[in-house]
């Protein structure tokens, strides 16, 4: 009889807990669309970025035009002289990089001459997206040459004005999907010139035009930077010395103030070319992009929640309180930290924890209510009892 009763009690406990976990999950899904939770999410993401181990990228090198280069080589004139800029590109290509991304506006260049010069080279040219979101038209690259490899260096600031997102593909006003500069640079680096993708009316299953978070590797100094002044001096490195650009993915961009190409990011201000470098690095095979958590991670979170719920049934109230208040959040924090650092993934225990906490509170409330009722009934029974002989009515007091 007592076995059946305890089994029923456990079933009630478990079903209440699971129901509350499901309810809090549904509330969380809805709250994720609110501004408040998005702000909390970005604050948490920035903290996780700050805690990342900062190691220099072995794959990506940035060649930048500094203020000094801008004055001495380009005479302080914008847009930069095409011939001189082509001289820099030639210097980089002589270093045999795996792929080169040029983050400069080349729309006014002589199309035929430039195309002939760089035909067959592993170069991805930046092309500007003009207009507003939803009606973007694509600018020209390399003087409007056809059949060149190009990409859109477009990034999307969050509501707080900080750049954290990019898109793999950007939908133009003509309905076509245009690949980003980072996407095509990774493709060219991995598969060669043939890997470059042009505009297409549809996307493949594994491609997306939805905003994705940039998994920032770190601040500017996690990438090797060569100024063009330095690059020109390293042209005559002897055969034995390791060339700095050999087999690397190189990005050429402007770091001079007149370029006005600096944006606030979770890593403070960053030049546009460094944001692209972070996107390229994160999307290289073996590196971790920030993707949505896979389904199995959600399932795993729930399995752990159910295990915790079951476990708490068999421990005392004191221990369940300690586990919920201290151990639980600490465990969630550690697992989240490790998942982000190692796999660029997020594991959310919040719905499960909140559900279990509510369940424990409800259980406590019911028990408290039951005890109060029992107490009241006992008092009433005591009142109804006839006057008892002395010595039997009250228990003797210790030492009394």
């Amino acid at each position, binding site marked *: 009889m007592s076995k059946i009763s305890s089994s029923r009690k456990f079933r009630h406990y478990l079903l209440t807990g699971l129901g509350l976990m499901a309810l809090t999950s549904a509330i969380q899904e809805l709250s994720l669309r609110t501004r408040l939770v998005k702000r909390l999410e970005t604050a948490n993401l920035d*903290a996780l970025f700050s805690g990342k181990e*900062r190691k*220099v990228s072995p794959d990506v*090198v940035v060649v930048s035009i500094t203020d*000094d280069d801008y004055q001495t080589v380009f005479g302080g004139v914008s847009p930069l002289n095409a011939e001189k800029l082509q001289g820099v590109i030639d210097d980089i290509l002589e270093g045999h990089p795996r792929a080169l991304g040029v983050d400069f506006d080349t729309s006014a260049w002589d199309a035929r001459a430039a195309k002939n010069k760089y035909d067959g080279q592993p170069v991805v040219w930046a092309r500007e997206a003009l207009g507003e979101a939803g009606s973007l038209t694509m600018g020209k690259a390399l003087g409007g040459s056809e059949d060149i490899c190009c990409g859109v260096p477009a990034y999307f600031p969050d509501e707080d004005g900080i750049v954290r997102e990019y898109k793999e593909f950007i939908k133009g006003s003509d309905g076509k999907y245009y690949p980003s500069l980072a996407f095509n640079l990774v493709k060219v680096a991995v598969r060669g010139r043939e890997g470059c993708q042009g505009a297409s009316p549809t996307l493949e299953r594994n491609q997306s035009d939805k905003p994705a978070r940039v998994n920032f590797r770190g601040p500017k*100094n996690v990438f090797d930077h060569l100024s063009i*002044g330095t690059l020109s001096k390293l042209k005559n490195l002897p055969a034995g010395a390791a060339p700095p650009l050999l087999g690397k993915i190189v990005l050429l961009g402007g770091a001079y*103030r007149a370029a006005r190409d600096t944006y606030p990011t979770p890593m403070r201000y960053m030049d546009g070319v460094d944001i692209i470098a972070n996107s390229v690095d994160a999307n290289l095979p073996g590196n971790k992009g920030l993707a949505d958590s896979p389904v199995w991670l959600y399932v795993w979170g729930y399995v752990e929640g159910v295990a915790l719920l079951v476990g708490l049934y068999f421990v005392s109230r004191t221990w369940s309180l300690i586990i919920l208040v201290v151990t639980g959040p600490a465990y969630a924090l550690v697992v989240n930290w490790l998942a982000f650092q190692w796999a660029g993934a997020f594991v959310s225990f919040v719905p499960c924890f909140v559900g279990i906490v509510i369940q424990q509170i409800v259980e406590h409330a019911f028990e408290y209510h039951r005890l109060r009722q029992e107490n009241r009934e006992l008092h009433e029974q005591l009142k109804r009892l006839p006057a008892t002989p002395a010595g039997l009515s009250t228990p003797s007091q210790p030492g009394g």
Partner: protein
Amino acid sequence: MRQNRWIPQSCAVLCLACLSPGALLAADSAPDGWVIAVDNWTRRNTALKLYQEVFVNDKLQGIAGTIEVALKDGQSPHVYRCDKYPCTIAIPEFRPADDSLISRLGRAFRELYSHRDTMPVSAISRGSQYLHQAVLALNGGQLDLKDAIGTIDMGTYTVSLRPIETAGSTALGRLSGSVNWDPPGGTSASFPALAPGIYELSMASSEGDSLGSAAVLLAAPADYPVKRESFGASVRALPRDLDPAALDALLNAILFDIGSSAK
């Protein structure tokens, strides 16, 4: 024919396994820069040669002449000059520092719980909010930068000076040094070979972020008070509502006027 093994096979495999991480580390030691011009300089008592690799925190000893080092820090090549033996310079730190899990956690929590300062976007197309034109005191190779620098965080910065017009040596190229900025005490950078004159001062943080550049007039201790006062008086006489670009041009002109009047 069976060979006699002087090391057991299992031991050899174990030794190779133990050595492999070392080999990997050695393979990973890409240089942080190269010597691209050198006179008489050494490292650990060995003469430095052209295109020799250098690493962050390397101590280079100068006997005579200059050394030019190209680093992967995104800056122009760094020039160091040794006029009086012995001179020692260290390759400046620009790589991310190795940090422990505790310090990374600390950084993450600080980010989470601290208030993020508003990150302003300057709508001006040129100029620098950190550096501005000034007359600086050059005393025994020590250059006090405090008058040329606005509000910047404490820390180590790369300082470089490009001569625009010098009284002493017009042939001098770009000079590089570093300053551990910690005002009011730590505001000086060491430039043993520097001559008074007009220079373009450029600075960058240890992470390689440029603080911009500005023209500065370096004055010997004897001339400094007079030139500083003269510059200050000229600046005070300027109208207050000047366009920033015009103000920039006028300050440069004043500096050049004061600098050239001493020749």
